[in-house]
């Protein structure tokens, strides 16, 4: 190794331990001094780059992890006593007709869920404007605490997170639709008895009871929610 090669390598990798490098360093005093100079510079660089770290960084990370574990344990406890995650699907309609459920379902109960969904959607507009794509893994992890296994392709998902509907935990997804975002809410603790279609503002929504829970699909008026319903049915499994 000549001096030029040594110096180039020193600037690139001051802590180099290759045999040729070390031998040249021992044999050439000028290069030895050069290497010493570079290492001193590196010490200055390291000290400069080691900026202070927030004192509460570690505790915040651990607290977040603890809260996450507690939330999962709480969801599991809710699922065990016979209300597992269920999805209410409503066949998508484009005519915008609004009708209510059969007489077997308590009108008060259904209207309560419907009103809660309307309030929730109106209060969480920001979540529905997201353009970032959520990965398959993240969607799966959002649904799994509710006893829903993601087994297929839901299409583009722009938002996935747990939420509260009527003080009960639910899974909230936002899917890309033809007319705009389609909100899918999986509610394990809402056991509705019949299909329901409702409309508010510029939205149309459907709620469908399922063997394990219920789910609402909400999109802009004219959105073919039937397609979304079908795709979701083919892409998830209730455990």
């Amino acid at each position: 190794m000549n001096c030029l090669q040594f110096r180039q390598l020193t600037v690139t990798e001051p802590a180099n331990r290759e045999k040729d490098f070390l031998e040249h360093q021992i044999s050439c005093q000028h290069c030895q001094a050069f290497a010493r100079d570079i290492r001193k510079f590196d010490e200055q660089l390291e000290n400069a780059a080691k900026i202070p770290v927030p004192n509460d960084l570690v505790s915040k990370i651990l607290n977040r992890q603890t809260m996450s574990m507690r939330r999962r344990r709480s969801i599991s406890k809710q699922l065990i006593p016979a209300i597992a995650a269920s999805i209410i699907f409503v066949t998508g309609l484009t005519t915008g007709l609004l009708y209510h459920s059969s007489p077997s379902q308590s009108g008060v109960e259904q209207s309560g869920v419907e009103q809660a969904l309307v309030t929730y959607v109106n209060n969480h507009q920001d979540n529905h404007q997201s353009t970032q794509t959520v990965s398959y893994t993240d969607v799966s992890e959002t649904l799994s605490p509710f006893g829903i296994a993601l087994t297929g392709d839901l299409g583009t998902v722009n938002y996935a997170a747990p939420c509260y509907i009527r003080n009960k935990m639910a899974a909230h997804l936002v899917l890309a639709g033809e007319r705009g975002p389609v909100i899918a809410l999986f509610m394990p603790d809402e056991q509705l008895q019949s299909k329901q279609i409702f409309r508010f503002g510029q939205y149309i929504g459907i709620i469908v009871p399922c063997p394990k829970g219920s789910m609402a699909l909400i999109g802009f008026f004219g959105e073919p929610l039937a397609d979304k319903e079908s795709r979701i049915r083919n892409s998830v499994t209730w455990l």
Partner: protein
Amino acid sequence: MSNEESRFTALVNAHANNLYRYAYWLCHDREQSNDLVQETFARAWKSLASLRNDDAAKSWLITILRREHARTFEKKRPQTSDLDYENIIDPEQSYDTSTEAYVLRKALHKIPNDFREPLILQVIHGYSCEEIALMLELSRPAVMTRLFRARTFLRSILVEQQLLDRESA
């Protein structure tokens, strides 16, 4: 505390600080650095089972952080200056307040991220050129070129500052 929780706690204690520093030199913002590190460990917790060897934890965490940064924060990178730190120095943490350190930090903010990132991985985290090449998905010669150019640039800035100091002395 379960074994998993103990393992996770050990990882956080061992790597959070340097991960924060790495995040800072990626995004130049303290708040975003905090968020990045929080999100990185949240994802690490979820996929802890996939980490077979704790010796590889540091590079695993850095990879998660880089992806999270690319996914979420790169679009909203602010222009920030060293003044962010100059005003909030915690006397209990050692922090180099010399002129040379100030000049180097300013220069570090200015060099392109492509050059800064391998340098930070080498200087703060002690990775070799081969390891950096693997993590950044570059060839070893590319990494070496970037390190050479980054260090040369920073040295020239420091030498220039030292000359100015002598002249004004």
